[in-house]
C-alpha cells in the first residue's frame, strides 16, 4: 500500500468490516457456538460434538447435500451455456440492444417467491401452461408430471431458478464482452479465424475472469438454494429435491431442533467455504497458466 494511502485505510475499511462482522462474522460464530451447547428456556448445557456425530449417520442430510451439488451442477450447465450465448447474441445486435437487455434482465427484478409460484403453476400437470402447450402442439408424449416425477423435479426447479437469474449473468458477461478490445478481434480475423474460432480462441479466454467470478458466485448461491425448492416442491417428490438449506430449515423450524440445525448449518457453511476455495484455486490456476502461456 502506498504511504499516502495508509491514513485512509482504517477509516475506509472499518465500516465495511464492522458490517461484515455484524451480519456474517458474529452470527456465524454464534451458530458454531450454539451447535455445541443445548439452550433451553434460558439454560445452557455443553454437549460437545454429539450433534456432529449424529449428522454423520443422518442419511437424509447427506442425501440433501448430494441434491445441493446436483442443483449446482445442473444450474452451471443451464445457466452458463445459454447465458453466454444470449450475451454474445446481444453483443451482435446493433439496434434495440438496450431494449433486449431490459427484456432479458426483467425476471431478475421480480421476487424469487413470485417467480417460483408462477413456475409452479406453469408445471401443473393438468392445467399448467407447459403441458397444455405440449398437448396443443400434439407433443403429448413429452408431457410430464414435472414437479411430481423424481427424474424431472430437480431439473424443473433449476430451470425456474435459472430463468430468474440468467438476466444478471447475461448483463455481466455482456459487460465482459464489451471490454474486449476490437483490435484483438480484428487481429484474429486478419489471421484468418472464422466466427467460431474467434469465439472459442479469442473471446472465451478474454471472458475467463468474468466467468470464473460468476461460477464461484453460482456455486455459493447453489449451496444456499432455498426459495425455489421450498416454494415449488418442499423437497419432494420422495425427497428428490431436498437440498441442504431446506433440510436445515426443516430441522430448525419443523422439528424445533435448533441445536442440531446449527450443527448442520455449520457443516453446510464449511462445505460452502471449501467449495468456494477449491473452485477459486482450480479456476485461478487455469487463469495463471493461460496468462503465462
Amino acid at each position, binding site marked *: 500500500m502506498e504511504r499516502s494511502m495508509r491514513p485512509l485505510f482504517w477509516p475506509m475499511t472499518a465500516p465495511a468490516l464492522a458490517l461484515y462482522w455484524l451480519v456474517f462474522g458474529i452470527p456465524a460464530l454464534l451458530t458454531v457456538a450454539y451447535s455445541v451447547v443445548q439452550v433451553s428456556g*434460558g439454560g445452557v448445557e455443553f454437549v460437545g460434538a454429539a450433534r456432529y456425530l449424529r449428522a454423520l449417520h443422518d442419511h437424509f442430510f447427506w442425501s440433501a447435500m448430494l441434491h445441493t451439488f446436483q442443483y449446482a451442477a445442473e444450474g452451471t450447465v443451464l445457466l452458463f451455456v445459454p447465458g453466454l450465448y444470449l450475451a454474445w447474441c446481444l453483443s451482435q445486435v446493433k439496434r434495440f440492444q438496450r431494449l433486449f437487455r431490459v427484456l432479458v434482465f426483467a425476471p431478475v427484478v421480480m421476487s424469487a417467491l413470485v417467480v417460483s409460484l408462477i413456475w409452479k403453476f406453469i408445471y401443473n400437470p393438468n392445467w399448467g401452461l407447459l403441458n397444455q402447450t405440449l398437448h396443443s402442439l400434439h407433443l403429448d408424449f413429452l408431457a410430464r408430471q414435472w414437479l411430481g416425477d423424481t427424474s424431472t423435479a430437480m431439473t424443473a426447479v433449476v430451470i425456474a431458478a435459472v430463468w430468474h437469474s440468467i438476466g444478471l449473468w447475461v448483463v455481466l458477461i455482456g459487460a465482459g464482452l464489451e471490454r474486449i478490445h476490437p483490435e484483438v478481434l480484428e487481429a484474429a480475423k486478419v489471421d484468418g479465424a472464422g466466427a467460431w474460432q474467434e469465439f472459442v480462441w479469442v473471446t472465451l479466454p478474454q471472458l475467463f475472469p468474468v466467468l470464473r467470478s460468476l461460477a464461484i458466485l453460482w456455486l455459493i448461491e447453489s449451496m444456499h438454494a432455498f426459495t425455489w425448492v421450498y416454494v415449488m416442491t418442499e423437497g419432494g417428490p420422495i425427497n428428490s429435491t431436498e437440498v441442504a438449506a431446506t433440510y436445515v430449515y426443516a430441522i430448525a423450524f419443523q422439528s424445533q431442533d435448533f441445536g442440531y440445525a446449527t450443527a448442520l448449518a455449520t457443516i453446510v457453511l464449511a462445505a460452502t467455504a471449501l467449495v468456494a476455495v477449491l473452485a477459486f484455486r482450480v479456476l485461478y490456476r487455469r487463469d495463471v497458466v493461460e496468462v503465462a502461456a
Partner: protein
Amino acid sequence: MTWFRDGRWMGLAAMLLTAAVACGGTAATGSTSVAGVKAGHLEVGVLWPQGSPEFPAAERVGNQLIKKVPGTTITYTFANTAARPKLDLRWQQGDPPDVDQVFNGASPSTYHLATDDQLYDLTNDVKTTQWDNGQSWEQAIRPAFRPFLTYQGKYLAVPDQAVLIGLYFNQKVLNENGVKPPQTWGDLMNACSTLNAKGIAPIEVAGTSPYYKGMWFDYLLMREVGPQAAFDIAWGKTRAADNPGVLRAAQHLQEMVQNHCFAKGFEGSQFTAVQLDFFRGKAGMILMGTWLVGEMKTSIPSDFQLGITPFPTLPDGASAGQQALFGTAFAWSVAAKSKDPKLAVEYLRLEQSKQEQAQRAKDLGNISPYTGVPVPAGVSGLDNLLAKTDKTSVTIYYFGLNKDKQHSDAWYTPVAQLFFGKIDPQQMVSQIDANEANLKK
C-alpha cells in the same frame, strides 16, 4: 364527619358490599366476575393477521377482557405457520408471548416445553372454573380431545378448536353416479371403479405433499392394527415388520393406486390445486382435515353439496381401529414466564366461552371441542363425525410426525415411494424399519 351522621355512609357500605359479593363469587366463563384478576398487559398469539376477515374474532375477545378488567392492554401477535419460526425462537430464548399455541399432549416434540417448566399449569383453573353449561371447564371439553391438552396429568393447554380428518365427498357427484359415501373398504373400492367407469376421478390427493398422501396410509394402518400400535410403529417404538397389519395396510394402499382410485396426475399436484379441482366437481372425494371448509371458503360454489364421512372400515383389521379417528385440538397455553398468568387464563376463558365458540362456528366454520356447541352449517355428516368422538379415540393426525422432520422423512418417504409405484409393500415395510434403525444410531 357530617357524611357519617346524615347516613350517607350506608350508601357507601352498600356499594362496597355489592362489589365484594360480585368479586368474591366463583368465576364463570362469560360472566362478569373476574376474581383475583388484576389489570396488566398481555401479548396473545392469534392465528389470523391484523386486517384479515377473521381477526375481529380475536379482537372481540380482547375487548371483552378489557371491559371486564379495565386498564388491561393487549398486543396481538400473529402466531400461525408463517410466524412460527420467530415465535419458536422466542420460546427457546425464554421470551415467549403470554398466550401461544405451542403445546400438544399427543406430540412428543412439544414435551420439552413441559419438562422445562415453560408452561403455566392450568390444572387448577380447568378443574375448578365453571363453564357456561354449569359443568367444570374440564368436563365441558369433549373427553376425546382432553389428551391433547395434558402432560403427565397436568393441563398445559386449553382448546379453542377441534380438528378431525374425514373423507369429504361431493354429494351431487356421488348421487348422480349411484355411489353412496363409502363406509367400508368394499364400498370404497366399488366407488373407485364406478366413478372411474364414468370418467370421474374418484379421489383427489396432493401428490406433492407427503402428509396428504400419507394420511391414506395412516388411516389404513390404524384400521389394521389399532391406534396405539399404529402410533408406536410410526414413531419407531416397534418394528413395522413385526406387525403383519403394516404389510396389509400397504397392500391396501397399493391396491388403491393400481385401481386408479386417485385422480390422474396426482403425483405432481399441489394441495390448493387439488382442493380447487374437488370443489369444481372434478372428483368424488378427498381425504382432508376439517380445516378444508375454512381454507377454501371463497372457492366453494354456493350450490356445492359437501358431505363428510369417517374413513372406511377394514373388515380384516383390528377392532380397536375400526371407528378410531385422526384429529387434534388446537389449544392455547399460557407461558410460565407470563407476568399476568391469571389475566391470560381469563382471556382464554372468554375465548372458549360457549357464546364465543358458537359465534366462531357460525362465522369461521370452526368446530368446537366443547359439548353443546353446534357444528358449522353446510357440511352434512359433520355432526355425526363429531359425535363419534364421544365413543372412540382421536389420534393426532400424521401421528404428530409433522413436528419432527427426521421421523417424518423416515415414515412418509417409503409411503410416497409406494404411492408412486417405486417400491412394493414389502419393500416399504423394510424401508421404514431401516430408516428408523438409522435414526437410532
